[in-house]
């Protein structure tokens, strides 16, 4: 009888492995909760109001908010009497943002560890009954992003991106009191997939023209704030360290697993191949290629990261399907990928939809950081369509999966009632199948439940923002990320260990009567005829090594007790 490691593992060993994996998981959780800072942080920058030259508006000039000689001509507020005196117009105003702030007596700088930079705008629009925000007002932004190194000349800003963007303004007012601010939705401005330079400079103009309604209905704008969200350096370091440790571990296990399979006399079964692919997908996800960003300018890293994650989840979903399918026990020969085309196409279609969406959003952002599919009506509808389609695909996938699991359980109960009449070998074969299936079901459910629980905890703790100092506390969001990431690693680790073909079985079968019919492989389902034939054959009880204290025996006795 050939099987997987799981069936031939003693309770003791299984418990040791389980405890080891659990401790590993706990470690990941605690690393995130205690060592890592929050995954991301914000830099909240209020725009400096620089004044451009009246006649030629200085379109190619950088307006720098501070510095000895390079500081722009600026006003503190539009109530300034200079505005009226010098008849400053809206087109002359340039909002200037230098990322990051000066703090504690010196100019901070950005670090490559920050990985991503997301810029959103918030507007302080004062309620003034004479100049209200009109319905469906649109904001037109003439935005430029520049960068410079800390050692460069203070005036030497280089252009990173430039665009004329339009954003839909969505503002509401609870109490219409003069001087109150509208509650406006935040506006996405840009997203950079790499933080390669020390300083970034954003210049924004809101142009107006005499005979057009561009930027006409946006009310009385008092201030423009740029909220820059970046990944925390500490989080990146912890995250990358985790990946760097996990990658060789999983890779080594994967090599061991593949060697076991190649040692078998038969070709690898579909399930074994799928498990192997799952391991590869995880290794791809673990591959700590973010280290390269320390030296190279790789703006596509964000996109690549998302795609890697997508591939892993797609393979994981496919694995569950195939696993359920291979344990159906309905005497249908599957073991071929084509048998699952219906089910897998749901996964494939969903992933394709998300991939297209991803390429549209983050792919285009590679060339134009200001781009977002959500800002135009057509883009937003298109993006929504793809997401809805992906949702439909996900739903149909889960229906397929639930139906298959239901069928498996139905067959299990049918087989269970038939078990006492079966020959020992067939019985053992089915018991093994049932056990394997139940074990994976339990493991998967635990992992899925933990993911959901972690997610809820991190969301709830997010809701109760505490902004002061309250001693030591767990960084739930980071713990969620490291915990869940570690958990799926542990999950695949466990699967690769436990569902690898067992060596012991081969020696056992060699010891016994070499009955090939009885050597049931992981997913090989004997035809009805051979199964019948095996029923009639005399069966060696020593198929299981007595000294192994087989888990299967334990399982069987438990079944009997039930």
């Amino acid at each position, binding site marked *: 009888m050939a099987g997987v490691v799981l069936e031939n593992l003693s309770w003791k060993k299984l418990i040791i492995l389980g405890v080891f994996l659990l401790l590993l998981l706990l470690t990941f959780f605690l690393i995130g909760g205690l060592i890592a800072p929050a995954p991301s942080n914000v830099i909240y920058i209020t725009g400096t109001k620089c004044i451009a030259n009246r006649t030629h508006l200085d379109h190619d000039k950088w307006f720098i908010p501070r510095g000895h000689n390079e500081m722009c001509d600026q006003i503190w507020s539009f109530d300034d009497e200079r505005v009226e005196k010098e008849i400053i117009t809206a087109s002359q105003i340039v909002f200037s943002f230098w990322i990051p702030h000066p703090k*504690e007596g010196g100019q901070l700088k950005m670090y490559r560890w920050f990985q991503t930079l*997301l810029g959103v705008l918030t507007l302080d629009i004062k309620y003034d009954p004479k100049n209200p925000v009109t319905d469906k007002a649109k904001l037109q932004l003439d935005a430029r992003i520049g960068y410079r190194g800390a050692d460069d000349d203070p005036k030497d800003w280089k252009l990173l991106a430039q665009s004329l963007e339009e954003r839909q303004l969505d503002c509401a007012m609870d109490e219409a*009191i003069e001087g109150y601010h509208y509650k406006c939705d935040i506006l996405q401005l840009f997203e950079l997939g790499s933080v390669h330079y020390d300083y970034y400079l954003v210049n924004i103009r*809101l142009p107006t023209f005499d005979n057009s309604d561009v930027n006409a209905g946006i009310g009385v704008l008092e201030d423009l704030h740029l909220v820059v*969200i970046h990944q925390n350096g500490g989080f990146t370091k912890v995250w990358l360290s985790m990946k760097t440790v996990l990658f060789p571990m999983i890779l080594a296990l994967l090599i061991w697993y593949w060697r076991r399979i190649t040692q078998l006399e038969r070709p690898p079964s579909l399930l074994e191949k799928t498990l192997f692919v799952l391991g590869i997908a995880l290794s791809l996800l673990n591959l700590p290629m973010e280290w390269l960003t320390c030296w190279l300018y790789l703006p596509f890293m964000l996109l690549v990261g998302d795609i890697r994650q997508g591939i892993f989840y797609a393979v994981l979903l496919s694995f569950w399907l195939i696993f359920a399918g291979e344990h159906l026990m309905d005497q249908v020969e599957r073991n071929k990928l084509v048998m699952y085309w219906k089910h897998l196409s749901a996964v494939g279609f969903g992933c394709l939809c998300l991939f297209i969406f991803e390429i549209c959003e983050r792919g285009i952002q590679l060339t134009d950081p200001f781009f977002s599919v959500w800002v135009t009506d057509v883009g937003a509808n298109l993006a929504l369509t793809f997401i809805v389609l992906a949702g439909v695909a996900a739903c149909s996938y889960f229906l397929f999966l639930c139906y298959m699991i239901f069928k498996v359980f139905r067959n299990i109960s049918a087989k269970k009632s038939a078990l006492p009449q079966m020959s020992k070998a067939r019985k053992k074969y089915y018991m093994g199948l049932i056990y394997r299936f139940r074990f994976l079901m339990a493991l998967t459910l635990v992992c899925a439940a933990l993911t959901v629980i972690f997610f809820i905890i991190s969301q709830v703790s997010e809701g109760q923002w505490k902004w002061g100092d309250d001693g030591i506390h767990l960084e739930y969001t980071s713990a969620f990320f490291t915990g869940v990431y570690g958990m799926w690693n542990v999950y695949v680790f466990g699967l690769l260990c436990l569902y690898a073909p067992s060596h012991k079985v081969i020696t056992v079968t060699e010891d016994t009567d070499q009955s090939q019919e009885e050597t049931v492989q992981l997913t090989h389902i004997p035809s009805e005829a051979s199964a019948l034939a095996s029923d009639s054959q005399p069966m060696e009880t020593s198929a299981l090594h007595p000294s192994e204290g087989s888990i299967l025996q334990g399982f069987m006795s438990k079944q009997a007790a039930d």
Partner: protein
Amino acid sequence: MLRKTLLVFFGFYMMTLQSSTRVEAIRWLAMANMNSVITVQQPSLCDELVGLVKRQKTICKRNIEVMESVKLGAKLAIDECQYQFRNRRWNCSTIDAVRLFGNVLKLGTREASFVHALSSAGVAIAVTRACSSGEIDKCGCDRTVRGRSPEGFEWSGCSDNIAYGTAFSKTFVDARERRRKNKKKYGRALMNLHNNEAGRRAVEDHMKVECKCHGVSGSCELKTCWRAMSSYREVGERIKEKFDGATEVKLQNTKSGQKLVLVNPRLKLHTDADLVYLVASPDFCEPDDKIGSFGTYGRVCNKTSKAIDGCDLMCCGRGYETRRKTVAERCMCKFHWCCYVICKTCEKTIEEHTCK
């Protein structure tokens, strides 16, 4: 003696106003200084300021570049006070640059509590804003949550500027009250400290929390939130609400030292965010320099209103005069989000009621 104590707190306003005797010039002053952040760095200026206590002068010298924002905060507070009280008998008007509001704040009245709360809120807001726009580089970066990390900004980013703004307001505005060990004025010191804190609470409690989702493909798997300040008008409005519901307290010896307790124990105990006062306000009907009242003679009132801005209450029953007046105002304006482009001047005749 009493006058001195009062004026010390407003020392900073004096700095604001002494720089120029014309109120209109303050704005210009703030502007001028903003254009030359470097030249303001003259710690010797701190000693020239009238009314700052020693500790405040030390803070001033150490944080000279923050002082510009403190000044601005003071200016904001005066403007907001005058806006909020524009319809009341005491309308927050200043006598002159040195005496400022005059004697009205000498006593621990509601008005005093309001001005204290408003000014500490004003400083907190102005300093926070200056930090956010990068005007001052003194602002702190520490992540108090996990203690100061040696890697600081690189490891976990900086705390938001509001934390620094309120902390600075606490250090600077409260400094002079903390000095008062004088038993005679201990009650007043406690009252001021409480109201200063209430002002800062009004800022902190009315923060907007904004969030952005930015997980995989922009999903809400990862969400980052931050705090943003409401407009100062909104904060002023909240403090005005607290003014309307202020609690009268008195100093009492308790086991744990002297404390402010309710005068009427049946009322609800005040919280940290509520305003407290020690003495009831005068009616401000007649001019009385001792209590800082200007009286309401000649004040404009609303004929139809039954509230405090109505002619009955505002004029304290003395009756009112009605005058027809022609005023010129801006009209038919074209406005572009920041600035008026073209305006015409229209003349309008209005009826104005003033108290006898």
